[in-house]
């Protein structure tokens, strides 16, 4: 075996999505095990500009946006994770998500997992119940206008997990 070779690509199912059940300052991350198909759109949209002196249509950047969605496979019986999302949607709470390329906490000498952390609000849930397919809810999210009690703005940022 070539022990000095490492794998490059990683699959979606190897990624981990968590929500914060405690506070922004002292978070407690709860894994969303039944999530799948996590999507994130991030960056500035572009806008076309035309004027007499240019033969080409040129572009400028608009505001940067952060939005995404994930699917959640519903579970029969009690499901505290889904309860959290329903309550956050109904109460219009700001929640925090992290999405990493591995577990939040890994054992040394493994490299820490990396990904993003963002305060988000949830949009309209879309639940599909179809024939023999499992019941799945699509949960959309967008970046929240979030501040700490001290007045510091909280936005999307890179997140590095813990090496225990």
């Amino acid at each position, binding site marked *: 075996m070539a022990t000095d070779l490492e794998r490059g690509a990683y699959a979606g199912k190897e990624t981990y999505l968590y929500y914060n059940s405690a506070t922004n300052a002292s978070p407690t991350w709860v894994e969303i095990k039944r999530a799948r198909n996590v999507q994130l759109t991030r960056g500035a949209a572009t806008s076309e500009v035309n004027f007499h002196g240019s033969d080409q249509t040129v572009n400028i950047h608009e505001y940067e946006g952060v939005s995404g969605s994930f699917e959640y496979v519903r579970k029969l019986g009690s499901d*505290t994770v889904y309860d959290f999302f329903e309550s956050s949607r109904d109460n219009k709470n700001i929640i925090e998500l992290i999405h990493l390329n591995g577990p939040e906490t890994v054992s040394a000498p493994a490299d820490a997992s990396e990904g993003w952390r963002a305060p988000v609000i949830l949009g309209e849930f879309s639940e599909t119940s179809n024939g023999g397919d499992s019941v799945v809810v699509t949960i959309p999210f967008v970046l929240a206008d979030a501040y700490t009690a001290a007045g510091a703005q909280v936005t999307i940022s890179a997140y590095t997990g813990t090496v225990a």
Partner: protein
Amino acid sequence: MSTPITCGELAELANSLPAGELKDWCDQSASGPQTQIVFANSEMLSRCQQAASSSIHEESEPKESKKKCKVSKTMKDTPGTSL
């Protein structure tokens, strides 16, 4: 930094804490099934554990001090009786 801990353990910790910020944090963090593993803020967790252990000490200390008072009373009473 975060530490893996179960919601059950966090709930137990919350029960041993007096009302306040630390107890609130534990209660919030422990929202889930007992066996569910969550990744809690290490610094906050150790503050809670310290607070829980010191609150146990505080509970036991008054009992000892009460005993000491009783002893000192007897000591005072004894010379009085002999006179």
